[in-house]
């Protein structure tokens, strides 16, 4: 017990006391259920240790690290341009979005800025990867709740977005397209018309999912009032992204901070929901996919012409210094603290990924819920294992 912090220790004592109370009252013995690491609802290898009383959770704790790949350490033996190939495997559903904050941090250290067209295209691809990422979880919600049809719709329509990303970057999952000072290439011919068509398709997909899931009474019964995160608790646990906005906090890094990206060049809305329950979080994600399609369309309308690459030296050496850049990724706030010693590669990179902080609320949130609700709550929190373990 000496290794545990105060808060953890208190939580442990409280859970022991709760156990003891339950045992005295009903004379039952709790059961410890290991959910994961190979459980289908954990999207990979997250393990949740839950102590149950009947079907009610008395105590739960996520145990991560089963998929740790050591990216922070690996970046230290790569050159700056090589790092993007690593980091876009962190959140593997929205890969391009992982590259952007790192490149922005490197650019900030070098004191350069990408030309406007590159900024626009970066933003478009960023939003496309958000759509590809979040639309999948909208379908996956159905699977977690027992409806197997929505996920097939999600996979079908996500394919169009992946095709766009592939068309522009050459990589479906791992574009590795962002460069310090701009982008590898300009957009291919026909990309703009194709994107507009796909965005319309994605909005239709959102309507479909809304009809299939969000309008369903059983879905509402399973998610409304379940896993409520009050505003204060959400802030205390450092949640970000849709989980925070689902608790009524109007906070979106795309709008709230100044970055050399194109979000502030168009009008769009940050959605929030006052309830803080699972339904609110899911609903926010649905609205965000819609909003993203609109952002992409507006950016395409105002796409400037010009080069996609600033003037950068052939061999990139980042000057000595430290920089912190974070962006609003599909899962929440993702940031890189880059320390450079003026060499070819970074001296140290600290990755702040959204899912790791988002699941830190799990012990607090799962106390007292039923086993089926564990799954709904985890699905609504929406994490990706690569993003937790890095």
């Amino acid at each position, binding site marked *: 017990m000496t290794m545990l912090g105060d808060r953890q220790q208190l939580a442990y004592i409280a859970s022991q006391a709760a156990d003891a109370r339950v045992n005295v009252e009903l004379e039952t013995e709790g*059961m410890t*259920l290991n959910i994961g690491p190979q*459980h*289908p*609802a954990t999207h990979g290898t997250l393990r949740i240790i839950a102590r149950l009383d009947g*079907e009610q959770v008395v105590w739960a704790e996520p145990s991560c690290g089963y998929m740790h790949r050591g990216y922070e350490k690996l970046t230290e033996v790569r050159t700056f341009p090589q790092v993007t190939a690593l980091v876009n495997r962190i959140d593997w559903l929205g890969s391009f979005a992982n590259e952007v904050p790192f490149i922005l941090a490197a650019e900030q250290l070098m004191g350069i800025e990408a030309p406007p067209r590159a900024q626009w295209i970066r933003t478009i691809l960023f939003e496309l990867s958000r759509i590809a990422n979040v639309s999948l979880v909208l379908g996956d919600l*159905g*699977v*977690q*709740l*027992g*409806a*197997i*049809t929505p996920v*097939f*719709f999600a996979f*079908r329509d996500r394919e169009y977005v992946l095709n766009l990303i592939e068309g522009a970057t050459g990589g479906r999952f791992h574009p590795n397209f962002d460069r310090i000072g701009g982008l590898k290439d300009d957009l291919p011919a026909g990309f703009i018309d194709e994107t507009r068509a796909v965005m319309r398709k994605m909005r239709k997909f959102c309507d479909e999912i809304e009809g*299939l*899931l969000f309008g*369903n009474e*059983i*879905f509402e*019964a*399973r998610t409304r009032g379940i896993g409520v995160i009050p505003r204060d608790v959400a802030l205390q646990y450092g949640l970000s992204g849709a989980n925070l906005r689902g608790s009524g906090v109007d906070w979106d890094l795309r709008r709230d901070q100044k970055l050399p990206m194109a979000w502030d060049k168009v009008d769009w809305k940050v959605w929030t929901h006052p309830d803080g329950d699972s339904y609110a979080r899911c609903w926010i994600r649905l609205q965000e996919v819609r909003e993203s399609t609109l952002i992409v369309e507006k950016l395409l309308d105002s796409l400037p012409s010009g080069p996609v690459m600033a003037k950068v030296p052939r061999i990139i050496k980042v000057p000595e210094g430290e920089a912190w850049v974070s962006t609003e990724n599909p899962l929440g706030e993702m940031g890189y603290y880059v320390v450079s010693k003026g060499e070819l590669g970074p001296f140290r990179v600290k990755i702040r990924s959204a899912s790791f902080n988002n699941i830190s609320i799990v012990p607090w949130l799962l106390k007292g819920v*039923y*086993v*089926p*609700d*564990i*799954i709904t709550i985890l699905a609504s929190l929406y994490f990706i294992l690569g993003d937790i373990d890095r």
Partner: protein
Amino acid sequence: MLGLIAGIPYWAQSLLRVLGGIVAVLLPAGTIVYVFLFKMMSFMQSRLGPMEAGPFGSLQLFAEVGKWLQKEDLYPERADKFIFKMAPLIVLSSTFLLVAVVPFGPDAWFTNFEAGVFYALAVSSVSVLGILIAGWASANKYSLLGGLRGAGQLIAYELPMVLAVIGVVIQADTMNLQQIVVAQNAGSIFGWDGLGNPYILTQFIGFIIFMIAVQAELTQTPFDMPIAESELVSGYMTEYSGFRFLIFFISEFATAGVFALIASILFLGGWGVPFSWFGWTSIDSIDNWMNVVGPLIMFTKMMLLVFVIMWVRFSYPRFREDQLQRFAWKVLIPLSLVNIMATSVLKVAF
């Protein structure tokens, strides 16, 4: 055909009926239903479904059975091996015992006895035992949770099912399934006998309650918590593999079919066509060709009901355990009691 059967002893007659039934009815019916369901499910989910085995995937069932039979017979080390092996057979036997009382035509039946409805409802609940001991014997926490959920759910939904059927029994004045079919087809609606009197019209509430209860008895979504793929990783079936899983798998689909058969008998007029169409008056005056056409009619109705069951299954998410129990005890059971009262009052009044 009747003369051929009448000359031999009773046990041989029964055996012939069972063998004939399995080869001529259940096997092709199973194949067709299976392919139909999988194709239907796939088209709903914008997929193609089985394509490789046979023309349009029609032999998919055989391919899957072959695959499952090849697999190793695994069981957990700490499992209670004897009852672990027994559990799937209990579930399957409950299904086959159900078929025993289903009449497919005026003479095409396995057994024809007076308390048919009672028997059907009784043996359908045998599967609870199988599920419970499968959950217990697997020595797996997920399976145990699944088994307990299954037991709670099946017992809770047995009641509305029985109560829904009582309405039909009151209206038909008999518990014999064969006579319930006759009563519907020989009946009339306010003196007009063009359609007979299928009980789905008069017992509509009963029909809805029955179908909901069937959905729960089959542990199909939205009532599939005992299986709950995403929470309990298939619940009581977690530890089963190979042909033992196959037996669970078959009995899941077969039970859906058999319950659809029983629902079609109770509410849709079973194998019969309205007797007024051909001038029949009672079961004895029915022409012999109904023994061939009857099963086909019944099969069509079964497909229709299985389609509805699966349609609901593929489009709904699942309830939570407590919501499910609340739904059974607070909505379905009071509703079916009201239905019984209304039926008996109207029965006496008319």
